[in-house]
């Protein structure tokens, strides 16, 4: 056979093989029930409910090594299940295996009824009520806060406004300087910062006035646009790559389930998030106010661990790194880890690193 014929034969074989894979992927999806795709399965029990917000305590999985309770707070842009996507890729399970007493605040599924909730409510009411409940249940005067993304901003604000109740503050992939993306040379980093700044404040008001919320579907499309080719190839080329491996296929479906479970962001809180923080950058310049009080980062006196991802396209690393030197505590640790925003929590490469770093840091401060 000539070289040209070899090439054509190889192409024909590849087309046949991939057609078979597409068929297999279709069959696999058709034969998989949604209830078989489980996320957030680490055992926990409900301790308190306040409006749609629920406080859970995880069941211990190992001998306790750190007695101070740790409260996990995710943001309002996604669900906490990212930190517990599957048993072998779960930050909460890893931390429980290292002997932490772990609590979780779940914001639930805010809708138009939650339109008027502000970040003030989330920090000074929901988190404060959860912290008080944990203190009562455990007998500890102070708790450790573990904030993720927007939840990291909430916990930073809480630690600044209620320092007497916070023993340690751990933040992960958390924006502090919302304009630091301009220093990032990676073109795919910081689109939310850039796009939000390109809007007029009145556009954000109109968005909230029109929908009552920052719609989850809207944010999903924004995230898709940030990785344009990945979004175009996800359900074809990427999918056929995983059909021969059941574990990978189920990982794919679990990630899809997490992505599909994107809640609406309460409207007034979204205005603060987008206008006061993303546009006006008030947290870093010390003019952000909650419940009539200025959030002064210098008031944070607890030890702080700041973990961020070096290839985080949603929260560029410099946006997180900015906390260093701004707080009142001299016990400040930064841990940059390889990976992206979500990969830090769910990739096989990062498994163990994040939880090990957090557990070691907390044990040293127990």
């Amino acid at each position, binding site marked *: 056979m000539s070289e*040209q*014929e070899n090439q*054509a034969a190889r192409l024909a074989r590849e087309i046949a093989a991939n057609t078979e894979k597409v068929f297999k992927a279709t069959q696999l999806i058709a034969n998989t029930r949604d209830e078989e795709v489980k996320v957030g399965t680490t055992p926990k029990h409900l301790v308190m409910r306040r409006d749609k917000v629920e406080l859970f305590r995880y069941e211990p999985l190992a001998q306790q090594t750190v007695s101070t309770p740790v409260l996990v707070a995710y943001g309002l842009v996604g669900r906490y299940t990212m930190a517990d996507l599957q048993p072998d890729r779960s930050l909460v399970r890893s931390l429980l295996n290292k002997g932490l007493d772990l609590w979780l605040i779940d914001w639930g599924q805010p809708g138009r009824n939650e339109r008027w909730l502000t970040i003030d409510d989330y920090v000074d009411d929901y988190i404060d009520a959860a912290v008080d409940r944990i203190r009562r249940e455990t007998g500890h005067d102070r708790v450790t806060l573990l904030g993720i993304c927007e939840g990291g901003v909430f916990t930073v604000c809480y630690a600044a406004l209620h320092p007497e109740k916070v023993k340690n503050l751990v933040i992960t992939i958390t924006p502090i300087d919302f304009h630091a993306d301009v220093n990032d040379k990676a*073109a795919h980093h910081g689109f939310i910062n850039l796009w939000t700044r390109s809007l007029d404040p009145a556009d954000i008001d*109109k*968005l909230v006035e*029109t929908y009552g919320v920052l719609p989850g579907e809207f944010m999903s499309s924004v995230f898709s646009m940030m990785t344009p*080719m990945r979004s175009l190839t996800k359900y074809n080329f990427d999918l056929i790559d995983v059909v021969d491996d059941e574990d990978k296929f189920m990982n794919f479906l679990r990630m899809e389930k997490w992505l599909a479970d994107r809640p609406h962001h309460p409207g007034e809180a979204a205005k603060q998030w987008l206008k006061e923080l993303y546009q006006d950058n008030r947290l870093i310049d010390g003019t952000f106010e909650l419940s009539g009080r200025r959030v002064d980062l210098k008031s944070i006196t607890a030890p702080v661990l700041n973990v961020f991802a070096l290839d985080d396209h949603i929260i560029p690393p410099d946006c997180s790194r900015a906390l260093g030197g701004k707080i009142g505590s001299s016990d400040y640790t930064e841990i940059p880890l390889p990976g992206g925003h979500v990969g830090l929590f769910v990739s096989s490469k990062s498994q163990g690193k994040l939880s090990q770093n957090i557990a070691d840091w907390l044990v040293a401060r127990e």
Partner: protein
Amino acid sequence: MSDKTQTGYAAGSAADWSNLWQSMAESSSRMVEAWSGSIAPFMMSRVSEKTTGEVNDLSAAIERMAQGPQLADVWDFDRKLALAFGAWIDLRARLASYNAVASAPWTEASRQFLEAMSKSKTESLGWRDMFAKWAEISNQELIKNQRTDAFLKAQKELLQAALQYRSRQNDVSDAISALFDLPTRRDLDEVTRQLTELRREVRALRRETAQSKGQP
């Protein structure tokens, strides 16, 4: 059919595939060259501007008509419908402008891909390798485009137009709800606002009471 005949058939078929593939590659290459070398991209942007201009005239005319003085007993619902229609026309124009800006990088991606392929030994590359290269180049170009002023402007105007359209749809649905004596979206927003404020007051009072009793 004998083995020999089958082999001959397979070889013939492979040769056909090869010819077909080569001819497709050459055609697409010629098409891309023709596209980038012509005034087509320029025309596309002109078309979108022209469309925007004409449509804006129409939506502006509807706007002028519907924003006239309000009459007590007639015309109000028709006015709302007309405003929603005007907003829809404007949205279509903004979408066309956005699509023109957002699709521009594909031309450059095609040019770069063909250039990269002409420099590499394509016979040693499988289609997945070639696709990976195409995806990498396209991703870079799309991302670069999404940071340009033209894109930011088109995106912002599309969002504004979409919100205006949705807002006017809401006005129509509120008018229909009112017609049937049903609570409107604004009524419900007002109720939830009052409920949220009331809850804040009750909780503040509770906290004050607890603090005065020395409870956490």
